[in-house]
């Protein structure tokens, strides 16, 4: 099998539609047995397995949501306008993330860094809202071991919060690496992988927001 050594200056090769992935090797499919990026495939496999993790946590919460103590249940605690605002913030962070991926594809590094930073800030705002919400619930008497409801609620939303925190760390690390020129390999794909993770975190919150906060217990 011959190695594909087409350079970017080799304009004699017609790039087939669909293979312009914006990478440093524009037009070339990945040199794998599937012709697809192994990194991307691994990320989708990871996200598929994450569905099982969050599925377990969500179904556990659904089973225990009515196991309350001291009348401290969802109806007494939820502040829907506040949670709606934080949900909106996370939803908009998905927009800024996709703008970042789009900028990376155009090789516009300045805008890539800008949108990544905005995404991290929006994620931080969401996380701050979650910490505030937890603090309010705790002061009202809802500790982690207060009831099965509280344990399952804190575990579910806490796990999601940890995912957001990990995402923020990845976003800021990526910005720092781009700024210092230390990101090697396919930059667009790296931004896209972190984008996939971030969108998944958003998708999970879409489910949590509806099932936990909006559907009445």
């Amino acid at each position: 099998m011959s190695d594909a050594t087409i350079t970017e200056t080799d304009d004699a090769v017609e790039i087939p539609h669909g293979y312009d992935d914006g990478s440093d090797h524009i037009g070339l499919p990945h040199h794998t047995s599937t012709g697809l990026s192994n990194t991307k495939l691994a990320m989708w496999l990871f996200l598929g397995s994450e569905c099982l993790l969050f599925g377990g946590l969500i179904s556990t919460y659904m089973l225990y949501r009515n196991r309350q103590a001291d009348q401290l249940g969802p109806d007494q605690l939820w502040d829907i306008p506040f949670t709606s605002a934080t949900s909106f913030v996370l939803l908009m962070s998905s927009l800024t993330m996709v703008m970042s991926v789009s900028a990376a594809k155009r090789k516009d590094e300045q805008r890539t860094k800008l949108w990544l930073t905005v995404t991290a800030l929006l994620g931080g705002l969401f996380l701050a809202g979650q910490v505030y919400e937890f603090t309010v619930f705790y002061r009202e008497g809802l500790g982690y071991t207060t009831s099965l409801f509280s344990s399952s609620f804190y575990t579910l939303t806490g796990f999601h919060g940890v995912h957001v925190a990990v995402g923020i760390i990845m976003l800021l690390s990526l910005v720092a690496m781009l700024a210092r020129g230390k990101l090697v390999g396919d930059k667009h794909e790296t931004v896209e992988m972190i984008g996939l993770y971030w969108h998944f975190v958003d998708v999970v919150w879409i489910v949590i927001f509806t099932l936990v906060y909006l559907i009445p217990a």
Partner: protein
Amino acid sequence: MDTDATITDSGRTPTTADDAHGEPPAHAEPAQRHKEPTDRQYIFIALFLAVLTAIEIAATEVGPDGPLLIVSLLVLMAVKFLFVILFFMHLRFDSRLFSLVFYIGLGFAIGLYGVVLATFHFFVS
């Protein structure tokens, strides 16, 4: 042309699978099945998702009660979920293999935990 790369008829460089079978694997389709949205379209999609979220919240405040409310919220949730994975996560534009591995995980999760919830009589009012 200053290269020794061999381009197949479909525009792909050969892979190990090609070597083994002479033809590209069935799932090694072009990476993009459709044209990806522009930045402006991404903004419209985000606005659409924001409107759906507002409808969800309004439905809980002034909408119908009981099963109709729950079904409405679940439908809106599913639409938002699909829009994010299809457009923001590019599943609509990428290889079907990526969709397959994700939907398998999602399907397992829904099936498995649906059975778990049914076992505990969650769906019995």
